[in-house]
């Protein structure tokens, strides 16, 4: 009886703790440079990697970012989502961190620190103009580049196709 109550109390406090941590501990934005991006894009395995390029000032990016968060929350060990943020590095504290909190983003966000974009844009796709939103999906076997906005259904369908190959 006593131990039952104790367990229940533990459960409650555990829930409380989870609730508190979910509410307060927004992720800290990481950084990525040309070499970091090269490593990320070169790491080809069975895992389907989804790399989305976005910025807080890009309204079509903001519109679709929830779809990528949704993918991340599937918690699929064979699916990895990375959100490469293109706000200026000096805007991370003022704009990007608050955005992550407001949208409760748990998918990893990394801020691009190489400002000479022409150094890394060709690594993503040779035909990419650098316009965002843009998304690269790849695994060991193939890769798909989407240089425009993407609808939720289209994105999930693509992931499904990758997984079934």
């Amino acid at each position, binding site marked *: 009886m006593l131990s039952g109550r104790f367990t229940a109390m533990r459960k409650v406090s555990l829930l409380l703790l989870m609730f508190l941590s979910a509410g307060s501990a927004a992720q800290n934005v990481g950084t990525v440079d040309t070499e970091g991006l090269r490593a990320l894009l070169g790491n080809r395995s069975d895992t389907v990697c989804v790399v989305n390029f976005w*910025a807080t*000032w890009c309204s079509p990016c903001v519109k679709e970012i929830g779809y990528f968060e949704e993918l991340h929350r599937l918690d699929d060990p064979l699916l990895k989502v990375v959100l490469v943020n293109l706000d200026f590095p000096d*805007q991370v504290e003022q704009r990007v961190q608050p955005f992550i909190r407001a949208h409760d983003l748990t998918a990893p966000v990394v801020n691009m620190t190489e400002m*000479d*974009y*022409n150094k890394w844009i060709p690594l993503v796709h040779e035909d990419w*103009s650098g*316009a*965002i939103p843009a998304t690269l999906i790849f695994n060991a076997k193939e890769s798909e580049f989407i240089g425009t906005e993407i609808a939720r259904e289209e994105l999930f369908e693509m992931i499904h196709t990758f997984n079934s190959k």
Partner: protein
Amino acid sequence: MKKLLVSAGFLFVLSATVSAQLAPGDEAVPFTLKNVDGKMVSLSDYDDQKGVILVFTCNPCPFSKAYEQRIIQLHKKFAPSGYPVVAINPNDDVASPDDTFEKMQARAAEKNFPFPYLKDATQEIYKAYGATRTPHVFLLDNENGTFRVAYIGAIDNNAMDERAVSEKYVELAIKALENGNQPDPAQVKAIGCTIKARR
């Protein structure tokens, strides 16, 4: 004759909207657009200049904002030697409410733009040039009365931090023209926001 010229120009604009971006060496597309002071400005107003630094830019884009001061500096540095800046705002008012003519006037006044800031109200001109970004530079070279595109693309290679710039593409291109050479590179991918087309 004048009528004929006007319709020929119109046809050219129409055909250019179907094709992709102008390339270095191509003839520049003539334009007549409304400036923030209410007066019309034409490319032909610059016939007595050695060239024109044509910049498609806008009010709210962080890249445009980051480059604002550098665009003013380009004008101050090169207008005296015959390469003034002409800025064109290509964004649609509805798609980008911060780019209305009134807001352009406010920005030009606030920043004291020493160059015209024109509204591409029909969006025909940016399409004819094939501009896709703000900011997006087309350096025009006046070859015996005909403007030709000499350089297309980025202003330099660091939007955020001017002190970290190692390649001043537009300045290098003007210097090449001044020395009687063609700019090299003649084209560098412009980095910025997408131009907001009418939906």
